[in-house]
């Protein structure tokens, strides 16, 4: 970075041995400041609301962490959870990534050991911000490996620290796997680069260790499992096979695979699942190529080399064919559905609606890129281009990562998260290049013969050489081009512009974080006309009602989105939750919600449901409610019972999805519709009931329920809870019982026409 050399005596601090120390100290200070800024930027939600766990999945992680802390590690490892997926239960200990919980548990016990008793909730809430500081540091390390420029790493760190693409998943309270996984991802990549560069078993082993940690923390580890082999494969194809690469890759693969197989959820996947086969294949290829290289060193015969090359290709082909054969025969599990949906964005909607129904699995809209990355998104290609200019092994990695991550981020909103680190690194490289050119106060020196001979002594001279080599020597002016910035004007303009961009970036990041990513979504905030904040706390109101007014083992049926929250906040068993491991069970709930009461009631009886919870936003205009999600329930149920639930029946003849007078009978008789609008009319003058989300007027006659009774409705009607009635004491159907209570006379059986039905005893 540029410093003012005019100050007398400053030379001591900026030159020689002590100069290096000063720069090291400065760098440390800057990194610490960046980490502090990264943490501070993520605290909006705690300051605005409170120290609370956000959204859905974090509630499960929080609950699991509490279990771990209370019952110890082995109990956690063997945890059979009988309060979710009633009555199937869930082998939770064997179906989760324990890295996050174990990390918090270790921190918790460490703090206790240091006699700092901190509530486990606060550790969970603040874990993500703390790790974002580490991520900034890791991206500094990674970028420093890529670029000679001292500023690139620091810029990457600051970008990583505050870019909204990463903040979206790591604000305080967002206690999700990604909270630590992104740090592990970046750090594993750094260790990999280090291993490849040095060909060191130590770095390779460290890389495997952190890869193992990553596997224990997030399902996204598959990205590393495929990216590292791809990098190695591309390097081999480019003819860059070396002992360094061989050592790094084999060390990582052998140790990393062993480490990953220790996680029960992963188990034998690394040798049985297609997603992991590329690593295995490249490992095999690496041995062949290594052997071939060895032979080549021994025998220089050119014919032999070609033969060997042919052999390599044949073996590779055989191995690939064998893999296909194993996949077809079922020994190796076929690609998972989520994997297919990465290539065909329409695949999930047709085959696995449960995946398509998740909003974060939708393809990314283009403004999201700018929203999450701001100016980095246009610096990013420049950074990738820079890599091409100086293409060493590690730059190849950047290029591959950039291409893959860009594609995936375009397919799925959620994968924006894996794109963010590489965007930060590449953008930092591009920006540091600009700053290094323009933020130098001294004039570029005239090229001399000696510098030309030395080549790399000066960055400018280096560029000039390259340019001279690149441009055809037909023109006189291009024979010896002068490259360098001489004018202070252009220097200051560019520097000023870059500074302005950076400031705008900070402004944008802060604004996005504050407005878009800091809402816990458990608590909703709105503004009153006078500008003051109004908190809508219906979720917690309802969950605490459940906690305090129902039996300890009252089973609550709701759509799976709310399963984790009910488990975490209401502490009641649920039928389905966000784990979505059993599609049939979810479809059963979908069927119960989308069928007539007479069909739903036996399903609910069979599953011992005591309460049904629905989210209804019609009164408040809260659009994320169950009626808007209803079609997904229908689709998922249709996937299992295509004869009983039909999506078409929920649309009007003109193909509209309506809730008003023109809603189809199927729609109006569905349990979900009835539960949402039951008694809703009573809030309005006769015939005036309107749904503020769908913007439609409701039928004058509200729906009637006979198998359920309303148990609770929250303040703003967002959550409605119904109690499932017991069977009628006199053995009648509920419709008849309700009719009798209302005083309807029953038709006499004797007056029925047709043959008499005789009783058989």
């Amino acid at each position, binding site marked *: 970075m540029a410093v003012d050399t005019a100050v007398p005596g400053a030379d001591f601090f900026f030159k020689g041995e002590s100069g290096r120390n000063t720069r090291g100290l400065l760098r440390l200070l800057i990194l610490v400041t960046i980490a502090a800024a990264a943490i501070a930027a993520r605290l909006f939600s705690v300051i605005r609301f409170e120290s609370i766990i956000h959204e859905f999945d974090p509630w499960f992680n929080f609950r699991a962490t509490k279990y771990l802390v209370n019952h110890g590690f*082995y109990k956690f*490892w*063997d945890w*059979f959870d*009988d309060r979710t997926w*009633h*009555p*199937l*239960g869930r*082998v939770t200990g*064997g179906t989760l990534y324990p890295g996050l919980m174990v990390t918090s548990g270790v921190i918790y016990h460490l703090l206790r050991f240091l006699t700092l008793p901190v509530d486990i909730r606060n550790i969970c809430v603040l874990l993500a911000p703390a790790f974002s500081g580490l991520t900034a540091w890791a991206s500094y390390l990674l970028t420093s490996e890529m670029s000679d420029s001292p500023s690139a790493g620091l810029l990457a760190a600051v970008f990583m620290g505050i870019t909204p693409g990463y903040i979206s998943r790591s604000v305080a309270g967002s206690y999700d796997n990604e909270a630590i996984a992104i740090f592990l991802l970046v750090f594993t990549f750094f260790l990999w680069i280090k291993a490849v560069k040095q060909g060191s078993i130590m770095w390779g082993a460290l890389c495997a260790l952190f890869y193992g940690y990553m596997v224990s923390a997030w399902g996204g580890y598959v990205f590393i499992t495929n990216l590292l082999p791809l990098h190695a494969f591309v390097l081999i194809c480019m003819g860059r096979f070396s002992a360094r690469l061989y050592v790094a890759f084999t060390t990582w693969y052998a140790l990393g695979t062993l480490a990953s197989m220790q996680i*029960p959820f992963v188990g034998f996947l690394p040798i049985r699942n297609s997603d992991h086969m590329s690593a295995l294949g490249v490992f095999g290829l690496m041995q062949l190529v290594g052997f071939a290289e060895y032979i080549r060193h021994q025998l220089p015969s050119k014919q032999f080399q070609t033969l060997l090359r042919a052999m390599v290709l044949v073996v590779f082909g055989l191995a690939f064919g064998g893999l296909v054969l194993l996949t077809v025969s079922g020994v190796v599990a076929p690609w998972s559905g989520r994997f297919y949906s990465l290539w065909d964005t329409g695949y999930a909607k047709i085959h696995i609606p449960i995946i398509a129904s998740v909003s974060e699995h939708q393809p990314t809209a283009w403004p999201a890129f700018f929203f999450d990355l701001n100016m980095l998104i246009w610096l990013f290609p420049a950074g990738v281009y820079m890599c091409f200019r100086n293409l060493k092994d590690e730059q190849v990695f950047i290029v591959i990562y950039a291409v893959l991550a860009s594609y995936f981020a375009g397919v799925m909103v959620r994968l924006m998260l894996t794109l963010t680190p590489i965007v930060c690194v590449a953008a930092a490289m591009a920006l540091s290049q600009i700053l290094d050119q323009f933020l130098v106060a001294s004039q570029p020196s005239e090229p001399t013969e000696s510098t030309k001979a030395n080549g790399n002594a000066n960055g400018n001279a280096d560029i000039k050489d390259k340019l001279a080599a690149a441009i055809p020597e037909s023109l006189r002016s291009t024979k010896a081009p002068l490259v360098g910035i001489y004018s202070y004007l252009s220097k200051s303009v560019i520097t000023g512009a870059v500074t302005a961009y950076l400031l705008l970036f900070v402004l944008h990041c802060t604004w996005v974080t504050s407005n878009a990513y800091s809402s816990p979504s458990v608590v909703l905030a709105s503004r009153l006309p006078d500008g003051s904040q109004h908190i809508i706390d219906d979720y917690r109101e309802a969950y605490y009602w459940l906690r305090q007014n129902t039996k300890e*083992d009252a089973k609550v049926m709701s759509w799976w989105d709310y399963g984790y929250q009910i488990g975490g906040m209401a502490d009641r068993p649920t039928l389905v939750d966000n784990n979505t491991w059993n599609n049939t069970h979810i479809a059963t709930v979908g069927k119960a919600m989308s069928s007539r009461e007479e069909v739903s009631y036996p399903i609910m009886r*069979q*599953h011992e449901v005591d309460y049904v919870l629905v989210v209804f936003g019609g009164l408040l205009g809260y659009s994320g409610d169950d009626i808007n999600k209803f079609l997904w329930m229908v689709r998922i149920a249709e996937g299992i019972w295509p004869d009983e639930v039909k999506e078409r029946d929920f649309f009007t003849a003109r193909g509209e999805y309506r809730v008003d007078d023109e809603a189809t009978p199927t729609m109006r008789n569905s349990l979900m519709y009835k539960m949402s609008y039951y008694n809703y009319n009573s809030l309005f003058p006769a015939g005036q009931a309107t749904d503020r989300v769908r913007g439609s007027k409701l039928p004058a006659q509200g729906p009637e329920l006979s198998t359920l009774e309303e148990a609770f409705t929250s303040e703003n009607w967002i959550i409605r809870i119904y109690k499932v009635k017991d*069977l*009628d*004491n*006199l*053995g*009648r159907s509920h419709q*008849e019982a309700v009719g*009798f*209570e209302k*005083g309807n*006379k*029953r038709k*006499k*059986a*004797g*007056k029925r026409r047709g043959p008499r*039905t*005789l*009783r*058989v*005893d």
Partner: protein
Amino acid sequence: MRLPLLGLLLGLLSFVSALSASGSKLLVVIEDEADKGKYSQFWTDLENRGFQLTYRSPKDASLSLFLHGEPAYSHLLLLPVRAKGLGPALTPNLLVDFVNGGSNVLLALSGEQSVPSAINSLLLELDINLPADRTSLVVDHFNFDSKSAAEKHDVILLPSPEFKKGVKNYFSVDGLIAFPRAVGQVLGNASPLLSSVVKAPSTAYVYNPKEEGESVEDPFATGSQINIVSAFQARNSARFTVLGSAEALEDKWFSASVQLPVPGSKAEKSSNKAFAQKLSAWTFMELGVLKVGQIQHYLNEGSQKGISNTSEVASIDVNPEIYRIKNDVHYSIELSEWEIDHWAPFSPPQGDSLQLEFSMLSPFHRLNLQPKAQTANSTIYTSEFKLPDQHGIFNFFVEYRRPFFTNVEEKRTVTVRHFAHDEWPRSYVISGAWPWISGIWVTVGGWIVFVALWLYSKPAEPKVKTR
């Protein structure tokens, strides 16, 4: 299930005075105070059995079935009324609430008076149909009492009721029972809660004496489709008995001499008194009441194997909340039956058995429970089995619903977990794993040997430099 149990407890508390298992307060709704004398033998019998009788007219303003929202009486006896309705205290809805509250009703109808519409619509809720014209009688030209109804054939004489195999008969009496001017009921086919006690003989039919016609074109019901006495037991075990002929309870029929119109038959004393006693005893829960005592389930393996026969059961973990798949478990349930004045060991009728289900969504096991031991007033049924190879939340479920027995529905929820990481057999125990284990050790050993050789073998000085 809670209300009858509470009732049972209360019944035990008032043991000295009452013999019913669910309380002694009996409300008799009788329209005319003067009619009370007609049934004096029946009242004496009831009072002798420990019931506290309260007489009320349906028009009585102080009549209320409920006190503070709870049923004020354990039992209700409704005698026929002349009025069209039953008054505001006995609407069908209130009567349904009364039954839902766990109280028992004995409804006596009479062919002499038309049935009130309230009763009619109440019975419709129970899936019992009465003749539409409200004044029809059951008539039989082969089984009438030739002494009192030689002309009209409307006093039917029937022997003791018989039931099919596996159903306990609480109503058997010696001799003939007379049902004068009975209202026939037709039971619906759908409700499993209904059962007929006394059916009309196959030659009976429903006839309206007010229709002066000689023949009946389309009778309401014929033959054994007509029920003269039918019983309904609600899901909460509250009993509702419909007796077609209130007259059968009258003193004059308790001691009447009856004779079948068959040549050679002799006049004999009617068994109405015994039948009335049995019918009221069953309705008012002196008979056929089942009680579940202790339910125990525990591991039956390892150190606890076969412990059920010893006295050590108290020292082990009884009724644990969690088991593991493939555990051997022991289940026992204690059942008693109320017999007029005491709890007796229960045993199911011939040809029937008590079953245990171990179920999650659907039963994984359905086992007959075996009577293992008997105490002074209960039988202990047990079963031992191996849990299925499926983890989840299961129920030990004993459901015993039989006609004339109160319902037994006992669910004990347990969690069945998977094998923990240290519960699998160790690798060296599995013979199939031996090649792999030896492979590991050969590799380790080989590597050590290689390292040793490498370290201790000095390479020879290179004589010629290889290219």
